[in-house]
């Protein structure tokens, strides 16, 4: 006898992510979830981003890794609250980990919350963390066909950041082809090319964040009015 169930496999994660989303909404927090392969430059991008934000900004970072608190130590030099999530083997962050560490961090909005996921292009894309946007990073030392090989994350990400563009003269990487491949999977994906080392493209990135932050504020204002 067949009985229809119709439930999401990750319904418990989705429930917690829904609670986080509600909290972000109420406290006017913009949460973005950074996802990439290991070594694509998530932490360096965050370092440079934190360094360029005014000290008066309300910003916090949760950074995930399988082992070590190296990233949290790197990110703690910029005057903003940072917390390492050591997953101990788990290849992605889930909503429960974010909830627990956010509580321990004691961060309250309004403000900006960066979640740096575990370096992995596969598993993190399945877990909703309540974020307003997933951001996928691809560095110029990888292949242009990564969007085709890992369509799930490029389909879900709102923005693709091409990193390490200062290395373009030294590598055979065609940014147009990488973008073309990403848009085959997700035609509407936003795109920014930048170098965290030279700062090239950084204004676009900061203004992308700014636009999204304003949108979050407007949505919150529209609901409360």
């Amino acid at each position, binding site marked *: 006898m067949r009985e229809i169930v119709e*439930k999401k496999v990750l319904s418990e994660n989705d429930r917690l992510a829904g609670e986080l989303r509600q909290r972000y909404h109420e406290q006017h927090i913009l949460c973005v979830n950074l996802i990439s392969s290991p070594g694509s430059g998530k932490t360096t991008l965050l370092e440079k981003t934190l360094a360029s934000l005014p000290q008066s900004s309300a910003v916090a970072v949760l950074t995930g890794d399988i082992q070590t608190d190296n990233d949290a130590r790197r990110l703690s030099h910029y005057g903003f609250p940072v917390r390492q999530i050591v997953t101990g083997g788990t290849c992605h962050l889930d909503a429960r980990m974010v909830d627990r560490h956010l509580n321990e961090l004691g961060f309250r909005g309004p403000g900006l919350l960066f979640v740096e996921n575990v370096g992995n292009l596969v598993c993190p894309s399945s877990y909703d963390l309540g974020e307003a946007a997933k951001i996928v990073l691809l560095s110029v030392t990888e292949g242009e066909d990564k969007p085709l090989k890992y369509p799930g994350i490029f389909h879900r990400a709102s923005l693709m950041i091409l990193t390490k563009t200062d290395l373009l003269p030294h590598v055979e990487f065609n940014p147009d082809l990488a973008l073309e491949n990403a848009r085959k999977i997700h035609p509407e994906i936003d795109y920014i090319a930048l170098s965290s080392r030279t700062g090239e493209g950084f204004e676009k990135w900061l203004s992308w964040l700014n636009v999204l932050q304003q949108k979050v504020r407007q949505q919150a204002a529209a609901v409360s009015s």
Partner: protein
Amino acid sequence: MHEIGIASSILECVAVEAQRRPDMQVLAVGVRIGELSNVDKDALDFAFEALTRDTPMEHLKLQVEWCPRRQKCLACSEEFSVHDLELACPKCGANHSTCIGGTELDIAYLELEEPCAKS
């Protein structure tokens, strides 16, 4: 390789559903996996088998329905499956469509032992 986590979420769900039907035995669980869900069917089968071995759920079968990416054309409303990453509408050729399938990661049904089969 998060299929262990996915398999264990499926088993948790089955356990909850089974508790609600104490006089029935769950024979199989049916899941829908979309091609954009980033779940590998073989790895999921392997994880499921490993997690159920030598447990009361040892005989539970996992039945997977694989769901291709499907789009709906924003111009003519045609619904179509995507082959070779071709997102253009096969009916009118428009390039704008929205994703309506392929991200599934759902528990669809349980196969239960008929109560009358128990004697």
